[in-house]
């Protein structure tokens, strides 16, 4: 029995959350530092996971397995494959930046009330989310995964509804109502998805008799566990629906713009960059492994939905007047790419999708956090309220531009690699869809550049004329992200090396192989 590394990686932030919440009201800064340190320690653990993980080893590594709820056939089973490792690393990397970026987001307005401790709560909740996200990446027991997949909603819900942008064009009262609307919407959407998944989870148990991903997958592969076609499809739909809501896939996406618009930038990043990844990750791990046939059966529809998400999201992003909403719709478009890559069922597509999850996390973080800094300065989310910022705050503008360029996946920056892989992967099997999806890159350029032009260029608006440039803390947040973007854009090999074997496994689960190129086929 070796040291339970995975458990530790998830438990540390959880304990950190408790500790942070327990910090007395007056010691606000202490809470912040505590949270930051915990997240950094978690990052260290995640790195050890990364190091201990052997890409060419068995499929699931660092596994842990304990009996938990015997009656439900539930075991506490953890294990990571390449995909999970990559995403755990992403999570652990992003959280410190999120905390640092949100340093002042939760400073209480009225300091009179001794019992009201928003700051502690804010950072505790962030850590709680981190813990739950990490463990759901690690879980190889469907039930265990489901529990945290659902439980994660609660802290997210409080983060969205409890903390919003300070200055709001319509005043605090309406801001509060809009926030709670967004929070409720988020929760209900995901809860409905989750509950339908619950039905499917129960169904799976009735069919399979246990929840162990590996056992079921093996049983399926060996044919010892037979599922009626209709059963498999229903179960698949139950699972997929929940993940599609989380992802979010058109037409289940409308909660995301509200949630991202109303929450503070760091929380918005937490939503898109971290939490939503669980959805796409789960498609890759659970849908494809547990229900390979049904996945193939559903592929055409899903691909079309993904395609719609791509184009639709991009077009709506162009039409937005609110910076955060714009980024939200951009993310919807990007999630379309991810889903498309997963269900293209080619190694390029799926490696690309995984890589995309990582890169999208980083790029969105960069763009959104800088946007957050911008908004915190002017106190408005409306694009129209800005103009000429580039002249007064060149560094801010520059970082914003880089974030934008990453979002439109400029070659040389990380997202390009993943996006191109997804496109190629799709194109090799579904040329038409691939080509249509390629329009996405033009639209992406459109919304990013329009956003940049309207906010950063042109004559300086009086309201922004006194805008200070990025502060040191903010630079510390943004610079590493940009470095990461460039590094992964130039040298993504470290990630692909980890991911590829896992993808190969998944491909074999669904009995698919990459189509041969014409020339070889001819020979």
């Amino acid at each position, binding site marked *: 029995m070796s040291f339970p590394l995975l458990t530790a990686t998830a438990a540390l932030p959880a304990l950190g959350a408790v500790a942070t919440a327990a910090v007395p009201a007056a010691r606000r800064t202490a809470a912040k530092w505590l949270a930051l340190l915990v997240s950094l320690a978690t990052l260290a653990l995640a790195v050890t996971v990364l190091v201990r993980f052997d890409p060419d080893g068995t499929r699931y590594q660092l596994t842990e397995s304990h009996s938990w709820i015997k009656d439900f056939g539930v075991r506490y089973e953890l294990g990571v494959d390449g995909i999970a490792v990559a995403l755990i690393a992403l999570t652990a990397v992003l959280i410190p930046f999120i905390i640092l970026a949100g340093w002042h987001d939760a400073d209480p307005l009225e300091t009179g009330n001794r019992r009201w401790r928003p700051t502690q709560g804010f950072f505790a909740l962030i850590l709680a989310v981190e813990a739950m996200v990490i463990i759901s990446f690690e879980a190889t027991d469907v039930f265990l995964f489901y529990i945290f997949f659902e439980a994660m909603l609660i802290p997210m819900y409080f983060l969205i509804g409890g903390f919003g942008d300070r200055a709001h064009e319509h005043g605090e009262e309406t801001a509060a109502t809009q926030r709670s609307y967004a929070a409720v919407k988020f929760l209900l959407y995901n809860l409905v998805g989750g509950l339908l998944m619950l039905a499917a989870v129960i169904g799976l148990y009735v069919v399979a008799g246990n929840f162990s991903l590996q056992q079921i997958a093996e049983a399926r592969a060996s044919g010892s566990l037979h599922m009626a076609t209709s059963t498999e499809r229903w179960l698949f739909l139950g699972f997929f629906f929940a993940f599609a809501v989380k992802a979010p896939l058109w037409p289940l996406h409308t909660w995301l713009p509200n949630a991202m618009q109303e929450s503070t930038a760091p929380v918005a990043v937490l939503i898109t960059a971290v939490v939503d990844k669980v959805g796409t990750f789960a498609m890759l791990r659970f849908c494809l492994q547990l229900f390979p046939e049904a996945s193939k059966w559903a592929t055409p529809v899903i691909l079309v939905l993904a395609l719609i998400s791509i184009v639709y999201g991009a077009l*709506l992003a162009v039409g937005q007047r609110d910076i955060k909403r714009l980024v939200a719709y951009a993310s919807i478009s990007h999630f379309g790419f991810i889903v498309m890559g997963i269900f293209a069922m080619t190694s390029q597509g799926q490696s690309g999708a995984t890589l995309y999850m990582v890169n999208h996390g980083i790029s969105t973080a960069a763009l959104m956090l800088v946007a957050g800094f911008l908004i915190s300065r002017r106190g408005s989310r409306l694009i129209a309220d800005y103009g000429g910022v580039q002249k007064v705050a060149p560094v801010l503008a520059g970082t914003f531009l880089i974030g934008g360029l990453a979002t439109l996946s400029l070659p040389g920056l990380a997202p390009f690699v993943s996006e191109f892989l997804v496109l*190629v992967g799709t194109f090799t099997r579904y040329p038409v869809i691939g080509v249509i999806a390629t329009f996405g890159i033009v639209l992406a350029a459109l919304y990013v550049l329009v956003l940049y032009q309207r906010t950063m260029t042109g004559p300086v608006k009086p309201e922004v004329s006194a805008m200070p440039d990025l502060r040191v803390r903010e630079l510390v947040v943004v610079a590493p992200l940009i470095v990461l973007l460039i590094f992964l854009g130039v040298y993504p090999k470290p990630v692909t090396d980890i991911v590829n074997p896992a993808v190969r496994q998944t491909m074999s689960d669904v009995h698919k192989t990459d189509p041969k190129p014409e020339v070889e086929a001819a020979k």
Partner: protein
Amino acid sequence: MENLIAPLIAAPLLGAAVLLVGGRRLDRVGHWIGTLLSTASFVFGLILFADLLGKGAEHRTLTQHLWTWIPVGGFQADVTFRLDQLSMTFVLLITGVGSLIHLYSVGYMEHDERRRRFFGYLNLFLAAMLLLVLADNYLLLYVGWEGVGLASYLLIGFWQHKPSAATAAKKAFLVNRVGDMGLSIAIMLMFTTFGSFAFGPVLSHTGDASEGKLTAIGLMLLLAACGKSAQVPLQSWLGDAMEGPTPVSALIHAATMVTAGVYLIVRSGAVFNAAPDAQLAVTVVGAVTLLFGAIVGCAKDDIKKALAGSTMSQIGYMVLAAGLGPIGYVFAIMHLVTHGFFKAGLFLGAGSVMHGMNDEVDMRRYGGLRKYMPVTFITFGLGYLAIIGFPGLSGFFSKDKIIEAAFAKGGTEGWILGGAALLGAAITAFYMTRVMLMTFFGEERWRNQPTRSPGAPSAEPAAETHGEHAEPHPHESPKVMTIPMIVLAVGSVFGGAFFSIGDRFLHWLEPVTGHSEGDSPLSAAAVTGATMVCLVIGVAIAWAQYGRKPVPAVAPRGSLLTRAARRDLLQDDFNHVVLVRGGEHLTRSLVYVDHTLVDGVVNGTAAGFGGLSGRLRRLQNGFARSYAVSMFGGAALLVAATLLMRAV
């Protein structure tokens, strides 16, 4: 020796990094750092050139593998550079002209407080452009391809506080993106066809692939080329790109970047050779563009826009040549190089004129400048002679060859293309003469016109710095600006001759592009003669219009064609109406749909339950007896149902 390729790119890249990250503390030395590093890269280029010359014609290909970039399944992308005669030519052109223009900019941007940043962008551009021409596979080329796009975006919009500049920059990037879409699709096609997208495998296996696939690839590559090289129908951005500082127009939008499309086509020659339909398309695009550009060039009063039109048309020539296949490749490149010299020279000249004229760009407010800025006049004049193809100057050789090749294509196509090329030559002569006359001859229309009339377009904000309300005092530019002009002028005078005497250039490039003499229906002499005739006609008409009678300070209404040409032959209006307006409507309606339909369904469901709840709770009316009724009814139902169950 090949290890020198990476530094070639690294030098300007380093420059860009240092200058952009370095911050204000580098303001005073920034421009020199930039110039130095671009020159360094030029030196590396020369060394490599010497090395290549030392080798046998067949062994003049160096490759340098740096690292594996994207390895996923069959998809293997490496960061590998390939230096052969073709890329060598470009390297020298880019770094050479690039360095000169760096030097020029030192003087030109003197009064701009963001000069450091400008040089950073310039270096970034050089790096990207070098990556483009040195890449050994299409994906890496794509990186450079978009890199130059980015640089051009940044440089066009360099004066970001001017909305026009910002818009122009955005437009350029977007239109280029459309082209990039073509390139990425082409790469995907290559991957599905050849299982690779490196030059080696793709270009050597074109024989095994179906012609349909190859045609598709070719057309997609053409689309890419159209975007980058401002060919019809994606040419609209080039004119607006003149919003950028003049050195940018000279380097990026005349000499180097816009010729990337030609490079792409020539590089992919093997594909096109195997796909005649694609080739035909290329030639058509070329021919159309060369006329289109020329016509636009005739109508513009903005000197830079006029030159932009001419650039468009000259690149049209190159594309046309490239479309002709092995007959044309070499000459396409040759014209590209010579064009690089004289067009850069012309732009620098234009810049110098504006520099002396309070950044006035409207040629109708020039006139008689030859005695105020002699150096500019002479260099500009030489460039002018070169571009119209005056015998003996570089343009003469390169363009003449293209026209020959066009005829050599044979059949009706040959005649049409050749005819177009000839016509183009005539128009070129016309509009260039027009520019020349309006700028340097005639009476001095800039006198007693203290302020710029609002209608006239304004390019340079530097105007704000030195007195715009004073009457302009034309003066020669400083040495740092004139020297590059002189060098380029020399190039544009002797370049063509140097290349063509003994077909030096042909032999140099042939191993890469291959070459074949087509059978021209006309003899070389006949073509040359015809060209000369066209030239004379063009010049004559121009002289008749702008030389003999004075040029009106305000543009006359002009013929329908003229007015159309002033508006880029209405192509922008088309874009605006169809794409912009249409797009806006589409997005607006989609936003509506998303809010009312998609979101409405969700909220509607919630509201529905709420209403149902409100109706149901009325049953709870507070009267104990009504509760009893429901119980009684329930009991009755229960009993009935149970009995029923038994009955059925």
